[in-house]
């Protein structure tokens, strides 16, 4: 399936979408850019810190609500589109449900286990209790209301056509975000045969029954890195931070990197992958799954 098709079929306007779940690597930028290209509206974005992806979606006017621990850009901190939306309602007003990294994870685990809330020991003494209506102090704990994404979008190293995804490196909240969601879209660096994925069922991130689309999208997390495939593209990070300072700057950036680019393949031709490609091999020692 192409990314355009996956986004068109499975992420309607108004969806609650979890992305950026590995915090810093494996951010599904290709999917985010496709959401912007298709002009998706009124999304609720769910995630921990999401690199600059949420900032871009806010700048493009796709977002109704942010349910996250942090929105900015990793290279310099402040998210300029986030600021404009929150401070001036530009390009539109957004609602903010502040979380911490721990609390957004617990909100997703609550959805995973289908309970209305999970109790937790964080957030006591924080004013986030005043601004997030879905977190309440109770009995010396906080009760964190379940957050259930309609769709979780994950970028991974490899996946087969049946939706069995192998991801490695730090995983952040990828597992709970996938399990909590109604459906999951996976984009991957390599589309592999099931003999690869089923050779290691412990590395399969999610049950295939959650996965509705597999998109073979090399470079799909660029400029965020993929362990074993490519490093972070700091230059692009920095350029975004700089250009997004003004609305016009963001619009020009979005035109160049999103609207004038029909798909990820064309995007990849615009970036200098040679300088960030990982060419070394540090292979995991295999595990023997034999039964005889």
């Amino acid at each position: 399936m192409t990314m355009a098709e996956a986004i068109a079929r499975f992420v309607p306007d108004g969806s609650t979408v979890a992305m950026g779940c590995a915090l810093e690597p494996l951010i599904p930028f290709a999917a985010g850019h496709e959401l912007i290209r298709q002009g998706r509206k009124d999304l609720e974005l769910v995630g921990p810190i999401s690199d600059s992806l949420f900032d871009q979606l806010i700048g493009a006017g796709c977002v109704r609500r942010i349910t996250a621990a942090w929105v900015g850009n990793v290279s310099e901190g402040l998210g300029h589109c986030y600021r404009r939306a929150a401070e001036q309602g530009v390009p539109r007003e957004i609602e903010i449900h502040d979380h911490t990294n721990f609390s957004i994870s617990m909100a997703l685990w609550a959805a995973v286990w289908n309970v209305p809330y999970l109790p937790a020991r964080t957030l006591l003494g924080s004013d986030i209790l005043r601004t997030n209506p879905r977190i309440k102090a109770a009995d010396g704990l906080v009760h964190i209301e379940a957050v259930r994404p309609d769709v979780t979008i994950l970028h991974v190293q490899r996946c087969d056509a049946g939706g069995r995804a192998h991801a490695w490196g730090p995983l952040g909240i990828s597992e709970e975000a996938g399990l909590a969601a109604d459906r999951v879209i996976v984009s991957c660096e390599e589309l592999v045969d099931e003999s690869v994925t089923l050779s290691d069922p412990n590395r399969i991130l999610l049950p295939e029954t959650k996965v509705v689309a597999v998109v073979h999208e090399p470079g799909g997390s660029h400029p965020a890195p993929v362990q074993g495939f490519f490093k972070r593209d700091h230059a692009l990070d920095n350029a975004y931070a700089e250009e997004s300072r003004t609305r016009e700057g963001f619009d020009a950036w979005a035109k160049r990197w999103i609207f004038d680019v029909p798909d990820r393949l064309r995007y990849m031709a615009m970036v200098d992958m040679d300088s960030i490609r990982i060419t070394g091999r540090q292979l995991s020692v295999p595990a023997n799954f034999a039964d005889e």
Partner: protein
Amino acid sequence: MSSDYTQQELMIAVASREIRDGELVFVGMRLPIIAYGVARSTHAPNARGLFEVGLMRDRAATTYLGTMGDPPNVTGALWATRMSNVMALMVQGHVDLGFIGGAEVDRFGNLNTSYVGPPEKPRVKLPGSGGGADIAILSRRWVTLMTHERRRLVDRVSFVTSPGHGDGSPGWRKRNGLLGGGPVAIITTLCVFRFPPEGGEAFVDTVHPGTTLAEVREATGWDVSVDSDVAETPPPTEAELREIRLRAAVGAR
């Protein structure tokens, strides 16, 4: 003696001395990650670092990290896992020391990384907590590093993202159910603040070489309390400086 060092290098040296050998440290990016590497190479060879992205490491990465999730921080890790597992170690009291960044800190060590001005209509929307509030509430003790400016060191933050010692009354944290011990130091470009053991207001513990108390007072948004015999911050040693410079690229921008 090393008279030739930058403000940042001094801050890194001070931060690295906060790390004791064998400790589990919730490491942030930029200066703290260099401080962690310096500590491991000098006085704390058995420290371990924990990263909320879902990593435990011993050896500090030696190439530039844009984020804690960059590939050099992953290769050779002691554990690559889910964030909620990392938080579990912290909520169980296993994280000895955390580093937290912030835009604003107040006299009681409370940090604001959320809203300047009213949350409904903020003057500045800051990025938010990330894991900051979790570290502030749950690590055994924590430290923040900050550029010393009057707009950053304020009397009271208007929004407490990451609680320090709350309203400054003794025992505020315990009374409010916060498990960790709270902030023990604010390391600025001019001085080092510390806190009384039972919590409360930050006081100037040491002033950096070449800085006067008057300069500290001028740049601080509250009426600074100072020990009568305030000492000078010990400058980086030769060994510290060597390690800092070896690693400078790791946290470089």
